[in-house]
């Protein structure tokens, strides 16, 4: 009986979080297939755990992150990942070229910036929770978020000349220069 309840709990968690975790895996630098492997590994580990954690969603995201970081270390996997250029998002008929470019921009951001963006937007984490997960301060997380999102915004607006720089840990936000208006 207890086992059935646990399986139900895990299946519910899978249904609720699988899509977001796959995206999170991509943000952490995995290919889609690797993200699936890590997702499977994470849930198989959850099956072995007889105790239901206090905050199951956060526990699951943290386990996934640890598995993903271990997975990413293999050189062979990294080489194979370079060959894969699959999309992070489902195709949409209403998708504009600028939007496609912005999606691509997200994938090109430094890992720590896109990790924060994915956690904030698709996992709906607070900066405090992101800071706790990434073992950094909420301010740093917020800075990375705004910095990365600003780059995506520029791409959405059709600006393509910005360059990547890792957001400094102490920089909260660096405002990008507005595009020159015709005067």
């Amino acid at each position, binding site marked *: 009986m207890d086992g059935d309840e646990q*399986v139900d709990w*895990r*299946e519910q968690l*899978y249904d609720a979080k*699988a*899509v*977001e975790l*796959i*995206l999170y895996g991509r943000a952490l630098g995995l290919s*889609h297939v690797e*993200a*699936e492997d890590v*997702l*499977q590994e994470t*849930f*198989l580990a959850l*099956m*072995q755990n007889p105790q239901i954690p206090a905050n199951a969603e956060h526990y699951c995201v943290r386990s996934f992150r640890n598995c993903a970081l271990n997975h990413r270390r293999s050189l062979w996997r990294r080489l194979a990942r370079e060959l894969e250029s*699959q*999309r*992070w*998002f*489902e195709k*949409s008929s209403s998708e504009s070229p600028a*939007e496609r470019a*912005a*999606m691509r921009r997200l994938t090109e951001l430094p890992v720590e910036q896109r990790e924060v*963006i994915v956690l904030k*937007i*698709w996992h709906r984490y607070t900066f405090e929770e992101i800071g706790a997960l990434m073992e950094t301060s909420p301010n740093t997380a917020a800075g990375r978020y*705004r910095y990365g*999102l*600003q780059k*995506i*915004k520029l791409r*959405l607006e059709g600006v393509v000349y910005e360059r990547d720089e890792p957001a400094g840990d102490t920089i909260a936000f660096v*405002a990008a220069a507005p595009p020159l208006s015709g005067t």
Partner: protein
Amino acid sequence: MNLPETQLRLWRPRRPSAGLKQRIFIARVASLPQIARVLGWLTPATACVLLAFLVLNSENTASISASRQEPILATIMSNQSYAAYLANHRMGQNDLSAVTFDWTNRSGSTSNVGFPRFGKPLN
């Protein structure tokens, strides 16, 4: 500052493949308690061993009864001193009862030493 969060939330992340959930939740069979996994192979293995034992045992019984070994074995087990006799009995050259002294049955002497001919006894 106006960040495009609302627009980004509309982007739907790619779904995992359809079989992934099945793979994970079917694989939970592997996480059954240890005793269940051990019994899973132990029961049929025990049945096989018992079946093999029964088959071999019935064949042995048939061959033993055919060669009439049981009374001898039973005798050896009950009378230890008979075992030595039985061992000799089976070994041919040491079996005294089996040796036949054919030469004792002949009427003539085998000696080549001549015996003197005796005449009539003297009065």
